[in-house]
């Protein structure tokens, strides 16, 4: 029997190519896990299983993958079941972004990352739950109800890509894609005890990703370990002419043997759970034993990252979501005039957090406040970018806990600012367009997972995967 909760993509790939089991067997094992736990955990909003899916049915996909492998055309992702966040387009499939306004919206093209996965023969299992339009840190903002943490279903899995994290942590898929605008991959990865990675801005094409905040969004992988995360990343990254900000990662020179990491101590003084801090210090000790050099660094601007984020993000949200007015696609509620139709459709289709951020974004962009908020936020953003640049002349990585708290219970963070604070260590990375990875770093007394976040200089993406191996032996 295949145990999809422990099986890695690397091991599964070897077994598929040696004929130990087929992709059909593997998909069956994942479907079994979905059957057992999806009603409870609510990771998937839709599983592409059944006759109506035709060539996109999971078994049809698996058969094609088995054929590829038989013909010697198999690659690392061939036949591997993967889960996709509900904001990534796949032709003919519903992509609702966790929102009622797009409940029945069917995509008219494949996202670049979907095209890449299809070419590699990966098996796309279905679409996973998320906070509406990727705004949230718990999946409690999903219009379809929250996902639950497989380690303790009374607690949130983190967000916004919570469904994808749950799918991987519970063995419903071997890997998953999420999107990360301010921590939406790294944070749920930490809460569910798995690896999550956010690439350098532009390394993974945003073509076919439903836009939240275009200067911050990146698609990235969830996996059990860094080897698997790297396999997914290498499959989905690369230059795409459909994304004007797309880049090709330049190969980096080999780093010196001794890795030097910087800890922004001042930033850890307030608002971090004592247990999280203790685990962080213990993890640093382990890294020292592995030969890492650990130094304190000063980052005077980083504490302003979260307030900057809550100006730039809502501003971009209010413009990006203006396209949803019930005219060209999505849910329409008829009104007397065209503007009435806009208003009714948007009001019926958007949930509370989405409205809040649209209104906030409209405010910071409005005449009279634009300079005080939006322009000032960009000024501070540039200072944060420069701060990282200068530091990376002295250290190889900046390291913090991924989340300042352990997975919390449903309903615990009812005040918006309290919820936003969960992203305090992740948002600065998006503002500075840098790559970062969240790595599991052990469990609390109650058995809840901790995560540690490594941020590297621009385009150091591939080097981030090596760190987890160093920590794993010591876990």
């Amino acid at each position, binding site marked *: 029997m295949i145990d999809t909760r422990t099986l890695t993509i690397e091991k599964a790939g070897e077994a598929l190519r040696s004929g130990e089991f087929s992709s059909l067997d593997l998909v069956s094992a994942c479907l079994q896990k979905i059957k057992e736990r999806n009603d409870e955990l609510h990771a998937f909003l839709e599983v592409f299983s059944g006759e109506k899916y035709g060539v996109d049915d999971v078994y049809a996909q698996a058969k094609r993958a088995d054929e590829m492998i038989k013909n010697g055309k198999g690659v690392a992702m061939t036949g591997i079941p993967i889960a996709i966040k509900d904001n990534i387009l796949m*032709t*003919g499939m519903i992509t609702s972004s966790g929102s009622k306004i797009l409940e029945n*919206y*069917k*995509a*008219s*093209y494949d996202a670049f990352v979907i095209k890449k996965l299809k070419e590699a023969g990966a098996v796309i299992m279905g679409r996973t739950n998320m906070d509406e339009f990727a705004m949230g840190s718990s999946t409690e903002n999903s219009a379809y109800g929250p996902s639950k943490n497989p380690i303790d279903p009374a607690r949130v899995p983190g967000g916004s890509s919570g469904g994808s994290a749950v799918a991987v942590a519970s063995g419903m898929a071997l890997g998953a894609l999420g999107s990360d605008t301010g921590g939406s991959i790294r944070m749920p990865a930490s809460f569910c005890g798995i690896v999550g990675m956010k690439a350098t801005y532009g390394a993974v094409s945003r073509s076919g990703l439903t836009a939240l905040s275009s200067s911050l969004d990146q698609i990235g992988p969830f996996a059990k370990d860094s080897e698997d995360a790297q396999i997914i990343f290498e499959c989905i990254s690369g230059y795409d*002419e*459909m994304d*004007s900000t797309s880049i090709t990662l330049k190969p980096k020179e080999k780093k010196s043997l001794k890795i030097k990491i910087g800890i922004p101590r001042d930033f850890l003084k307030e608002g971090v759970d004592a247990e999280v801090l203790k685990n962080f210090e213990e993890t640093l000790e382990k890294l020292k034993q592995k030969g890492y050099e650990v130094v304190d660094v000063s980052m005077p*601007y980083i504490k*302003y990252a*979260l*307030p*900057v984020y*809550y*100006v730039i993000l809502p501003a971009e949200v*209010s413009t990006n979501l*203006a396209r949803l*007015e*019930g*005219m*060209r*696609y*999505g*849910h*329409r509620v008829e009104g007397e*005039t*065209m*503007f009435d*139709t*806009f*208003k*009714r459709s*948007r*009001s019926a289709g*958007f949930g*509370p957090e989405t*409205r*809040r951020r*649209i*209104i*906030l974004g*409209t*405010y910071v962009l*409005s005449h009279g406040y634009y300079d*005080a*908020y939006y322009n*000032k*936020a960009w*000024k*501070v953003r*540039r*200072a944060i*970018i*420069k701060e990282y640049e200068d530091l990376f002349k002295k250290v190889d990585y900046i390291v913090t806990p991924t989340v300042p708290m352990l997975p919390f219970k449903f309903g615990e963070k009812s*005040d*918006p*600012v309290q919820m*936003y604070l969960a992203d305090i260590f992740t948002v600065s990375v998006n503002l500075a367009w840098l790559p970062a990875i969240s790595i599991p770093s052990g469990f609390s007394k109650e058995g809840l997972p901790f995560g540690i976040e490594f941020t590297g200089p621009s385009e150091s993406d591939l080097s981030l995967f090596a760190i987890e191996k160093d920590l794993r032996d010591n876990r």
Partner: protein
Amino acid sequence: MDLKDIENLAELAKIELLDIEKSKLLEDLGSILAYVKQIEELDVPDLEIEYSQRNVWREDEDSFPIFSKDLIISQFPDSKNNFLKVKKIL
């Protein structure tokens, strides 16, 4: 900020709000803006960032047909003869 501001913003954003939502939003925005305000007082130098600039536009030739016209049309909430139907503006 007061309720009138919320109403104006909702009008600009084309969102209808119930009275109870307006007061809740006023409260929420108040606490978010109080948090965000710390950047207002921050004295920060106006730094230049180096961007790599390159032409991302394709040549003005026939574009590649990656979008399915039928699928796009099938998503229109209202259409006539394959055209999107909208309400009159004037």
